[in-house]
């Protein structure tokens, strides 16, 4: 029995890799149609070709760091082209290694644009009657670093803390338009974004995460995609405005 019906149409940013890519797979396997947004056309096409149901996946190229003005217009175009949306997952994110002694404002602005402001631009359009189905479910991919920003990657933590507050603020502001908004806070997951991320211990980041989790296992994108699918489905209908941690106990250590 699948979680979603033919009517479900879900928009995902960051679809070309990491958590976003695995989420595309999960949602299409569970019966939803998905529109993926990313910059890399080749990766998106490869993803489509590799799916069990490629017909359930379409993509649009959009650079979330680019001109912020065009993002909400693009969402309106997407709704006109594919139909009204029933879900949105913001899985796009960048992690800049930037200790304060070399803090670069332009880099920080770019981090905020991609990780936080672009989600707001998308929802600006998506929350309109012409873009959403009766019920719209939104999931932000935040991080436990929103609670405990990593040394030398503070910008990332700041943007994710922003997503947590956005979850609550938007729920209070537009939740009554039948828009359900939640965030998830994963711990360390093995993706391109975390590759080569240098931790204070000098150990490989994923090894350090593995040592910290309760089961001494690394976090997988599949675990995250499973929770995202749950939060987009009617099974989680009564969960509103929450930030749910999914980190194998990493934060507790």
């Amino acid at each position, binding site marked *: 029995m699948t979680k979603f019906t033919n009517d479900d149409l879900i928009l995902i940013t960051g679809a070309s890799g990491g958590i976003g890519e695995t989420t595309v797979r999960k949602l299409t396997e569970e019966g939803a149609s998905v529109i993926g947004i990313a910059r890399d056309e080749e990766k998106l096409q490869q993803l489509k070709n590799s799916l069990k149901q490629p017909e359930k996946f379409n993509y649009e190229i959009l650079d979330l760091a680019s001109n912020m003005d065009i993002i909400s217009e693009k969402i309106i175009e997407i709704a006109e082209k594919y139909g009204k949306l029933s879900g949105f997952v913001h899985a796009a994110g960048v992690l800049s*290694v*930037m*200790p304060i*002694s*070399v803090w*670069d404002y332009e*880099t920080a602005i770019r981090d905020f644009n991609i990780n936080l402001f672009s989600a707001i631009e998308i929802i600006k359009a998506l929350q309109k009657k012409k873009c959403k189905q009766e019920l719209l479910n939104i999931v932000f991919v935040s991080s436990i670093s929103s609670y405990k920003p990593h*040394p*030398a990657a503070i910008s990332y933590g700041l943007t994710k803390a922003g997503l947590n507050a956005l979850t609550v603020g938007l729920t209070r502001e537009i939740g009554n338009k039948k828009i359900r908004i939640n965030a998830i806070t994963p711990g360390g997951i093995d993706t391109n974004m975390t590759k*080569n*991320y*240098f*931790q*204070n*211990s*000098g150990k*490989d980041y994923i090894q350090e995460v593995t040592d910290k989790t309760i089961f001494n296992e690394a976090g997988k994108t599949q675990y995250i995609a499973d929770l995202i699918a749950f939060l987009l489905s009617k099974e989680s209908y009564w969960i509103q405005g929450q930030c749910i941690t999914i980190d194998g106990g990493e934060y507790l250590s």
Partner: protein
Amino acid sequence: MKKDEFLQTMIDAIEIEEEINENTELENLEEWGSLAAVTTLALFNKFLGLKIPASEIKKAKTIGDILQLGGEKYD
């Protein structure tokens, strides 16, 4: 950016107070540590457009080893 300019940028960012040269050993340098290493990685990225893996900087024993990571990218 020239190699010696990069070195000066490193010195300023990490606030290295003693006299150093390419032979200076990192383990003898008080200011060198994991945060200094990450700062250096960020500088390689910002000024030379290089994404140096953390594993490479871990191998470095001297200031010279670090500067060498800039390779062909210096002016």
